């Protein structure tokens, strides 16, 4: 299974995302922002970083990139797409997911091991989790506050599109503790925290068992591989 990992100028976590794909058993294919060709990948990851410096609005300039035009088209046809942090912002700016992400309420960048509740397991990227499961993956952002108007929030809640919620601490002032969303079809998922930083023992968050041994993020990638096999 080939999973594309997009690199925009200013993308930072592309190598980490590719490593996560490999550790999950997939083949990582790097996709270039200026290329409209997706090279026959079966799914796409939009990794974290500061595409185009996050200038203007996070993800806004990247959303205009040639590669995104193809991804938007294919996502609407069902291609699994995961947007992590800056990738989530790109998805929102591309209108593949609703709402917006703004400056953290406390005005600072924050990097922490974040607890999340998995609220939805019927997506291409979350089917290996159990509903209500608490997971810990790193969060690191300056503009991760999720906002949407009342109507949109109501719809997200009503249709069960909220996929992850912050647990214990709301690190950035997100409305309704929203950490991640899915689209109606379940092929597109975006979240602020970084599953690709919790995939390899020794380099993830601390756990009760051992330092830096958390690998809760791996299931995002095994989920998509599973859904592709079954598709």
């Amino acid at each position, binding site marked *: 299974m080939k999973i594309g990992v997009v690199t925009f100028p200013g993308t930072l976590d592309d190598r980490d995302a590719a490593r996560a794909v490999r550790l999950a058993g997939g083949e990582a294919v790097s996709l270039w922002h200026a290329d409209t060709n997706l090279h026959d990948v079966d799914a796409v990851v939009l990794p974290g970083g500061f595409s185009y410096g996050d200038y203007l609005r996070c993800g*806004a300039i990247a959303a*205009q990139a040639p590669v995104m035009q193809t991804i938007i088209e294919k996502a609407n046809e069902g291609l699994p797409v995961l947007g992590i942090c800056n990738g989530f912002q790109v998805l929102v700016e591309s209108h593949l997911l*609703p*709402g917006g992400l703004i400056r953290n309420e406390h*005005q600072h960048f924050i990097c922490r091991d974040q607890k999340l509740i998995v609220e939805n397991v019927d997506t291409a990227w979350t089917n290996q989790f159990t509903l209500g499961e608490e997971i810990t993956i790193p969060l690191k952002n300056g503009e991760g506050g999720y*906002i*949407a108007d*009342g109507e949109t929030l109501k719809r997200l809640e009503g249709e069960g599109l909220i996929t992850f919620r912050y647990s214990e601490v709301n690190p950035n*002032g997100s409305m309704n503790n929203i950490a991640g969303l899915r689209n109606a079809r379940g092929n597109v998922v975006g979240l602020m925290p970084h599953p690709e930083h919790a995939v390899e023992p020794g380099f993830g968050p601390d756990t009760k068992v051992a330092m830096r041994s958390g690998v809760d993020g791996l299931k995002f990638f095994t989920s998509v591989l599973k859904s592709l096999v079954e598709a």
Partner: protein
Amino acid sequence: MPKIIVEVMPKADLLDPQGKAVGNSLKRAGHNVSTVRIGKRIELHFDHTPTEADLEAAKKAAADFLSNGVIEDVVAVTVEA
């Protein structure tokens, strides 16, 4: 040379954490403001005096790209001498 100014503000009913933080500071310093909101002033410079067409193009860019309609409003697109 005249330029085009695009002004973008966060939507009135949405959270503006930066404005809130600045507003609180101003209040602490004794200003009697009620609310502060912080948006963007985007200056588009040209090598020539901007034409009607440039203004039309700027208005379109303001709506499609320079602002995000989900969370922001374009409050003005004007030519400034």
